[in-house]
């Protein structure tokens, strides 16, 4: 590698690192302006009357501004969806009603202006039509009434004895222009250095096509066959498993799309593992160190995103592993490849010493 070429690569590396640092700072800053409330309740009904009619929890807004409300709620177990209605009331720090609603995703009235201070979220248990009408009137609920065809369900609560476990989750996120632009910039800052680093990793003297020798071609061909057969075996097993699950009426603990994606990732990992362990993976004209560095950086970013989603309870929702876990799967796969590089390095080292 010429001195000029090396200097360019080092320069690009420094710029990429600086961008990553800026991204990290902005990523941390983006948490400022995100508030959440998560509450679990157990309501026992005796003859249709709830043991507790109102649950409440505080939510502190640290900066005045426009916010978007979003959230969801439901039974904590699959079979515990209640027939009663929950009325939500957001009270300002001075106890006045900021907004009230009875159902649906809360984007309808968003964004709303919130002042700095501690708000109170109230969850009203509404188990009969009179209470429902009273709630609508008392809190002046407009435009977000529970769909009329859903209301008859409330009749099922008449004389009901038993209890429901519920989980309510409300998020309040900043909706200012700056935050929207930040998201775009963050996206660009993440993608640009990755693309640059990938280009450097796969190119030598401007050539993009990777060159492998005859032995590597043979190794990669065997690796591809192995990966293909693993993929076929996985598909057969998955189809079998899905049929059993469908027949039993059970619910899959992982979304089908995520399983399909994971199976593809496993097949790719099998291909790559064989290729790395038999010295077929790295092309002759590829920069091995750069490739490993890029994959390590990608692994860290994807794992960080995965951990972020775990902390936010977005990967496992109501006991189901959702599509947001895809980033985590990719991160784990890249980390696994990193371990394979290490294993291969140690095997080679041992061979040299022997």
């Amino acid at each position, binding site marked *: 590698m010429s001195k000029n070429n090396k200097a360019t690569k080092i320069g690009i590396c420094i710029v990429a690192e600086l961008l990553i640092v800026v991204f990290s700072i902005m990523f941390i800053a983006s948490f400022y302006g995100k508030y959440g409330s998560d509450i679990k309740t157990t309501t026992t009904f005796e003859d249709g009357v709830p043991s507790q009619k109102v649950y409440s929890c505080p939510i502190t807004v640290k900066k005045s501004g426009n916010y978007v409300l979003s959230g969801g709620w439901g039974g904590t177990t699959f079979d515990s969806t209640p027939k009663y209605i929950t009325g939500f009331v957001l009270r300002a720090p001075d106890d006045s009603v900021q907004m009230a609603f009875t159902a649906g995703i809360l984007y309808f009235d968003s964004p709303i202006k919130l002042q700095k201070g501690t708000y109170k979220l109230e969850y009203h248990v509404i188990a009969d039509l009179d209470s429902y009408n009273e709630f609508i009137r008392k809190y002046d609920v407009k435009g977000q009434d529970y769909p009329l065809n859903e209301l008859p369900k409330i009749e099922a609560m008449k004389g009901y004895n038993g209890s429901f476990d519920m989980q309510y989750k409300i998020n309040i996120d900043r909706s200012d222009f700056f935050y929207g632009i930040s998201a775009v910039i963050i996206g660009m800052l993440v993608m640009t250095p990755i693309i640059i680093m990938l280009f450097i990793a796969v190119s030598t003297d401007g050539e993009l096509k990777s060159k492998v*020798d*005859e*032995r*590597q071609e043979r190794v990669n061909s065997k690796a591809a066959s192995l990966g293909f057969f693993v993929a076929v075996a996985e598909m057969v097993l998955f189809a079998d498993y899905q049929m059993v699950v469908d027949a039993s009426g059970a619910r899959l603990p992982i979304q089908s799309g995520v399983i399909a994606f994971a199976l593809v990732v496993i097949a790719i990992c099998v291909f790559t593992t064989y290729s790395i362990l038999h*010295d077929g993976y*790295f092309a*002759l004209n590829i920069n091995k160190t750069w490739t490993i560095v890029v994959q390590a950086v990608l692994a860290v970013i994807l794992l960080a995103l995965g951990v972020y989603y775990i902390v936010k309870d977005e990967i496992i929702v109501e006991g189901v592993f959702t599509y947001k876990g895809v980033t985590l799967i990719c991160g784990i796969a890249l980390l696994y490849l990193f371990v394979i590089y290490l294993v291969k390095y140690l095997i080679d080292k041992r061979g040299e010493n022997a």
Partner: protein
Amino acid sequence: MKNLKLKAARAGKDMSQDELAKQCGVSRQTINAIEKGDYNPTINLCIAICKALGKTLDELFWDDEE
């Protein structure tokens, strides 16, 4: 079966596996695999190796025991 003739010829020319690999346009691991007898090269690669080491095919790849 190990190809000791190749290893000896390479050592005779004071070349490393990496240097020979670069001259032949293959990876160092491929030269290593040929020397260890783990890989049978094609005739094209055999010729490239012979040219790099200044030897004939017989000298490097003919099995005298046969």
